[in-house]
Structure formats: structure tokens, C-alpha cells
């Protein structure tokens, strides 16, 4: 039995008001796997993610990372060993892309030439040609390019864990698809333990080895993608069906929405 890369043990998180956002979550995520967290807005997905790099500290329970309690580790060292990607990307507008990407290395005091080399390597890895993009500022990029740079930055210190909070949620469908394909290729190339918050079931099925469904701070399901689709659990079925209905190909002919969009008919 190997130790889990991320191990939530009886983890709860409550707001100062007493409102419980996470209620005794226990989950063990294996090293090198990608786990998607699905659930309604407010179900605790982001909260769970943020307990891993201690942007939030649990009210009770623990997070163990490779067998070590996250609270026992030096906060700064811990965060530097965990990549973090968010929907807003959060590139620093006053830094060039190469400086943005290598900022963790800069914070660690790694010499400039090594930092630049690493930044260029990663920009290439995410499909941004360093010759064109290294010296650009974030405002000169499209949304998809920014998210690529954000991903490169998260990988800069070669962290074993990657936290991604709706990374592609703000992108148009085509760019999102490209990013998901790139992500999949990157995950095959660099072995990372990934925790991915998403609203997109397709994304979860495409990228994840395991899917967690959260509801009001409880773990409703922890399943493989196949298991998730086949599950007879009412909450899982409801989620899958809610998503399927949004896809025109799967839309049952009797749904009232099909009558509301006559221009979609051939």
C-alpha cells in the first residue's frame, strides 16, 4: 500500500459564521492521478482545493501530502511545491511572460539565466513560442494564450501536485478543447497528481482518472469516469443528465427547449 499523494482525513471547513462548507471529507488520491471535482456552485469544490496549498486551513481534520501533514510543513516551501492554476489566470500585468512563468524560481533565488531557460522551455511546452512570446506582457495575449502561460507558470518549479480551479472555464469552446488536449498531453509527459475543479463533465471524463461529486460539503461519489456514467446513484444520475440535456445531440425530442430554438433545426 503506497501512501496517497493527497489524503484528506475527516476534513471539515466552516466559515466564522459556523456555516459548514466541507463536512468530514475523507479521500485518498493516488500519486500521478488526475481527479476531477464536480458539484454545484457552493458545494465546496474550491474550498477543498484550497485546503491543499493552505490558502484555507481546515477547521478540523487534516490534509496529508505524501504521508506528511500539510500543517507540519513550512508554508512557503509547501506552496512552492504545488502548482496552482485558476480561471482568472492571475498573470502579473507588470511582468513579461518569461518573468511571470519563472516567478517561483525567482522567489527561490535561482540565477537569472537558469530561470529564463526554464521559462522558455515551459512556454514551448504549452505551445507558446518563446521567441515570440517570452518578452510580451499579459495584456498582449488572448485568453487562451494567457491560460497557457498560467499553466507554464504552475509547472515552473516542477511541483508534484497541480491544483486547477476551473482553468478553462472562461474560454470559448474551441480554445477550451485545444487546452484540454494540450493538458492531456502534458499530463502524459509530466507525471503529476492533479486536482481539477470543473463544471464541465466532458472535461472531467476526458482528463480525469477519478471523479468526485460534492454536494453541500459532502462527498456524494468518488468514481472512475466509466463508473460515474454508469452509476445508479440518484445524485450522480441527476448530474449526468443535467449535462446531457445541454448537448443537442443527446437532447430527447420531447424536451420543451427544442421547440424554443427552431433555428437549430436542420
Amino acid at each position, binding site marked *: 500500500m503506497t501512501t496517497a499523494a493527497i489524503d484528506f482525513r475527516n476534513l471539515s471547513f466552516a466559515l466564522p459564521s459556523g456555516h459548514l462548507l466541507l463536512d468530514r471529507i475523507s479521500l485518498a488520491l493516488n500519486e500521478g492521478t488526475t481527479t476531477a471535482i464536480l458539484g454545484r456552485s457552493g458545494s465546496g469544490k474550491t474550498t477543498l482545493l484550497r485546503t491543499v496549498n493552505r490558502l484555507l486551513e481546515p477547521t478540523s481534520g487534516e490534509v496529508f501530502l505524501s504521508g506528511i501533514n500539510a500543517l507540519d510543513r513550512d508554508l512557503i516551501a509547501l506552496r512552492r511545491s504545488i502548482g496552482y492554476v485558476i480561471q482568472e489566470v492571475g498573470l502579473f*500585468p507588470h511582468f513579461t511572460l518569461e518573468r511571470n512563468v519563472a516567478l517561483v524560481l525567482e522567489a527561490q533565488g535561482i540565477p537569472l539565466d537558469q530561470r529564463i531557460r526554464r521559462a522558455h522551455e515551459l512556454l514551448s511546452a504549452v505551445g507558446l513560442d518563446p521567441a515570440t512570446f517570452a518578452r510580451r506582457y499579459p495584456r498582449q495575449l488572448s485568453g487562451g494564450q494567457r491560460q497557457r502561460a498560467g499553466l507554464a507558470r504552475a509547472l515552473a518549479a516542477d511541483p508534484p501536485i497541480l491544483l486547477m480551479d476551473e482553468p478553462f472555464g472562461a474560454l470559448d469552446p474551441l480554445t477550451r478543447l485545444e487546452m484540454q488536449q494540450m493538458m492531456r498531453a502534458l499530463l502524459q509527459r509530466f507525471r503529476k497528481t492533479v486536482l481539477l475543479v470543473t463544471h464541465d463533465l466532458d472535461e472531467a471524463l476526458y482528463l480525469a482518472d477519478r471523479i468526485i461529486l460534492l454536494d453541500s460539503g459532502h462527498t456524494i461519489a468518488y468514481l472512475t469516469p466509466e463508473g460515474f456514467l454508469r452509476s445508479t446513484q440518484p445524485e450522480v444520475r441527476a448530474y449526468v443528465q443535467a449535462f446531457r440535456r445541454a448537448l443537442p445531440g443527446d437532447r430527447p425530442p420531447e424536451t420543451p427547449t427544442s421547440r424554443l430554438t427552431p433555428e437549430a433545426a436542420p
Partner: protein
Amino acid sequence: MSFLSQNASTILTLTIEHLWLTGAAMFFAAAIAIPTGILLARSPRWARPVIGLANILQTIPSLAMFGFLLPLPWLGDRAARIAIVALTAYALLPILRNTYAGIRGIDPSLIEVARALGLTSRQRLLKIELPLAASFILAGLRTATVTCVGIATIAAAVGAGGLGELIFRGVASVDNRLVLAGAIPAALLALAADAALGLLERRFKAPTQ
């Protein structure tokens, strides 16, 4: 013309004195208000009372402020000290408020990322917060400087010198030439400071996403 040539050296000396009073006050005000603004941005629940206090200082009429400081030991011994303390008090609010607002106004997702990347609190301040708030802080310094150049003319009332001396003398002797000899350089100083700091402010303007 003969008036100017007769008084040129006096005007110059007083202008330098004026600059010195304002400059010293700005130095102290920045040294107090920028760190305080940073601290307030980190613990915003103190922001209201502290900025409120600076606000109250601002409302004291300047002549009264100089008067209040006059009887104080050590301070009262030298008129320039009184002037510098009073001007510092007036300069605090704009610098403090802008430093606080500049840092608090940074996109929260940037601060979150800076924390998540494992930047130390100091690195976050020096690499992210101060550069992104720089144009705001400079705007505060600019407002404070222009205000202080004006208020410094009143410092002559307690004998601290500066261009106000010509104005007071001119008023006392009903000589408009003297009043203008103080007022015009003071106004020019204010405009010059405004332009110079405005230029600096634009240079530090953080590029927006």
C-alpha cells in the same frame, strides 16, 4: 524690473527655504504614511480609525495648527521645526489614503496567486503590491506636495521663512509687488512639483490586463 533685481536674492533664498520646508515635510510624511498604509492594507479593520485620524489632522486650519505647535517644548524653539511638523501632518492623509487604496485595489486574484506561488510576505510586497500600487502612491505624494507648497506660505506666520514671508510683508506694508513676489514663485513651485510628479506617476502606471 528694478524691484525684481533688488529683491532677486531674497526671493531666491526664500524659495530655497520654501523648498526645504516642503521637501523635509514630504520626506517625513512619506516615511510615516507609506509604511502605515501598507500595514493598514494588511489589516483593514484598522483602516477606518487611522485614516479617520489623518483626516482630522487635515481639517485643522493651518494658521491654528502653527499656533498650537508654538508653545510645545523643543518644537517651539525653532520655527522651521514647527513648520515641518505641521506640513507633515497635512501631507499624511493623501499619501496614507492612496497607499492603502492602491494596495487594496489590486485584483484579488493576483494576490491569491502570489500567495499560492509561495512568495513570502516581503516578496509579495516588493515584487507585486508596491509596483502595482506605485502610480497610486505617487498620485498621493503629488497631491500632498502641491498642498504643502501652498500651506508652507503660512509657515512665515511663525517665522519659519519661505515665500510666505514676502506675502506677509507685502500685506503688512500694503505692497502688492511684495505679495506677488512671494505668491508667484510659490504658485510656480506648486505647478512644477505637480508636473514633475505627474510625469513620474505616468512612468509607474501599471499596465492593465
